[in-house]
């Protein structure tokens, strides 16, 4: 396992670098804007505090001086008097982003009424994960089966239909297909709701069922657009393996073609399939996030879309960070699986 260990270490270093550079880039790009919004919110809160204290001032000048001093104190205590790129602030901000301690959102609240960025994002995250793990599992199941099926019939009509389908669905924006699906199944035929946010309250016991019903249309769309390219990749690798000598040997040994394709060939094609599929998953990730906005699915993608529309920086930064983490971990997991399967990596 020497080689595999080395592989694990280099990959881990890689994801740390990726996360670190993403964070650095985000803070470098949005640092000054973030500072401005923070100072604005301090201004507002100090003014409110002073007006609630009911101190009587003799002149507006006195009032202004009092408020200015208070604001100054607050800014100092938070550390905003230093620029965002000072090492202390930079490190602080980085830790804050990592723990999603990003203050309050200006325009959004969680269902319990909290406007803390962490609460809002963490409330949405399970929905995103639910939709995408479910669709990924369905896509991989269909993709593996269809891919192996057309591989066993390479050159047939099914094979060509599958290739054409993969090319077509690969160049379609998934969020556009989503809009068409809404038109077809919510407007023309009232089968599914047009907006995927359930109307029942999360505390209601029937909420889960309602949520799953609302999830169906986005799920069907993501699967429909996604499985074509998976099947195409699976076919590509399985066909390659079916031409290998040892498979021919198995054939002559009298093992049924079905067993050869679905068991032996698929198993041997696994490592490259896993990597390519993880990468294609990663590539479709952005589009899938956007499809949340189309379907109004109450996940992070929808939150992202709304936050961009409202220029709500704390939310944008928080969601960017979490999306990056999810993405990087997916790629990392695929790498590990690949390394585990591939003997060349083990040898080092």
């Amino acid at each position: 396992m020497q080689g595999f260990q080395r592989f694990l270490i280099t990959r881990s270093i890689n994801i740390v670098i990726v996360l670190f550079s993403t964070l650095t880039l985000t803070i470098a790009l949005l640092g000054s804007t973030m500072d401005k919004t923070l100072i604005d919110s301090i201004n507002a809160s100090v003014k409110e505090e002073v007006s609630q204290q009911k101190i009587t001032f003799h002149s507006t000048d006195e009032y202004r001086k009092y408020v200015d001093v208070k604001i100054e104190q607050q800014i100092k205590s938070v550390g905003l008097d230093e620029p965002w790129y000072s090492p202390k602030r930079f490190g602080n901000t980085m830790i804050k982003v990592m723990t999603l301690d990003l203050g309050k959102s200006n325009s959004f609240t969680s269902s319990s009424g909290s406007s803390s960025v962490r609460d809002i994002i963490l409330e949405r995250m399970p929905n995103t994960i639910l939709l995408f793990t479910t669709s990924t599992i369905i896509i991989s199941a269909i993709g593996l089966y269809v891919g192996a099926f057309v591989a066993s019939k390479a050159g047939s009509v099914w094979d060509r239909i599958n290739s054409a389908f993969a090319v077509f669905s690969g160049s379609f924006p998934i969020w556009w297909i989503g809009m068409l699906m809404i038109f077809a199944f919510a407007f023309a035929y009232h089968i599914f709701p047009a907006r995927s946010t359930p109307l029942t309250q999360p505390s209601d016991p029937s909420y889960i069922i309602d949520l799953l019903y609302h999830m169906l249309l986005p799920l069907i769309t993501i699967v429909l657009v996604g499985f074509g390219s998976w099947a195409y990749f699976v076919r590509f690798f399985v066909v390659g393996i079916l031409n290998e000598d040892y498979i021919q040997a198995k054939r002559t040994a009298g093992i049924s073609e079905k067993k050869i394709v679905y068991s032996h060939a698929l198993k041997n094609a696994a490592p490259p399939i896993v990597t390519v599929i993880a990468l294609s998953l990663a590539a479709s990730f952005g589009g899938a996030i956007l499809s949340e906005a189309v379907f109004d699915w109450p996940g992070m993608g929808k939150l992202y879309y709304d936050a961009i529309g409202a220029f709500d920086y704390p939310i944008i930064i928080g969601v960017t960070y979490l999306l990056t983490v999810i993405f990087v971990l997916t790629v990392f997991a695929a790498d590990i699986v690949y390394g585990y399967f591939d003997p060349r990596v083990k040898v080092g």
Partner: protein
Amino acid sequence: MISRRQIVEEFRRSRAGMAGAGILAVLIAMSLYAAIAIPLESFRQWNNPNYWVDYPRSAAPSWTNVGILGPKAPQHIILSYPNDASVSRSSLNGINLVTHTYTVDFDYDSYPSDFMLPYDVKYGSTPPILQVDVSRPDGKTFRIYYFSLPPSQSTGGNEASARVFSSDPKVSENLRNYYGDFKYQQDASRPEIMIFSDLQHSAVLKGKYMFKETFYLFGNSDAVEKSGVVLGGKVYGLMGTDESRRDLAIGLLWGAPVALFIGLTVSIASVLIGLVYGVIAGYKGKRTDEGLMRINDVFYSLPTLPLLVIMSVAIGRSIFLITGFLVIFGWVGMAKISRSLALQIKNLQYVEAAKLMGQSDIRIIFKHIIPQLLPLTFASIAISVPAAILGEAGLSFVGLGDPSIPTWGQILHDANSAGAAASGVWWWVAPPGFMIAITGLAFVLIGNALDSIVNPRSKKI
């Protein structure tokens, strides 16, 4: 290696490749048509609602109005001076009379939803008088407006520039004089219905209507700058209009050159960068290779969309900046491919020979290795166009596209914000996405065809 002629010949034989080339030709034709025939103003003013006031709101494409499937809905009609008006001049007691006549062939099964008569007159001291007569197919003529034009608020005292609306009380007042002509109860407060009604029974009177707009000008230098007739309808143009009254045909046409520009610029730039980067890594080997490929790995695992969002939020949203952002993420794949090919080529005898002759590394890379990879480069450029187009479309879709120009992604963003799909405005949703898909498809087909010709590895399977 195969010659250029061989590549062209083999490409001609590839049906998918030729289909892709055909689509690309159509897109280029669309771009040229947009550049030559469509006023550039419509491109610049795409997001300015004032530019589109004469257009209908959410009107379906006019070809949906075939008349077989049901009643023929009224077409939205925009007529304006000087293109559609026949002009006559006369003079009466020193007053100049200018008459603009517009002919409307109205053979639809329902009434227009409203009408407007825009005008713009420059005058010296006395405001001009506008008189509007509508002569109907049955020979009747209704005088619907006779009034001195109010001076325009915005441009000062010497210009009358506004529009007469069908809801104007003066129009209803004039129409009351014609109640006697109708055999049944008419309603002058709905001029768009009364003017287009049959005298005998309550139905649309089909045929040719003439809108005669006569301007009484009291000064010698007075001039009519603008006039027109806008009849509100349910269908308009080749592709319909959106909720902000924009003509979608124009938006879709302008989207073509923009998409081609983004797609080609991004893919050419990123493939060339990736090519040089990968070849240097592969040729130099050792530490250089290791370092360069580590950087490549980092870029490979960056999530594109979230970072694109951050960059456009923080830096800017102009089309050139977006192109640059997309290049940052675009070069990675090509670098990996060209590195592995450079590893093979650098061990070939002629490269070794060049090295022994003492040629510099740069010279070997650009003279001996990269030319070998050029056919593959072309294939890669074509293959990476769709990702660039989808990237820009996705960015536009979240609302971070260049606000000064129309793109297909932005049209879809507006459609999504207005809930177009759920309210059945399919002509706002289907065509832009179809254009994105078909443009991507064209380049995928071309790229795959080229790739299977120049890349021996993909040929086998």
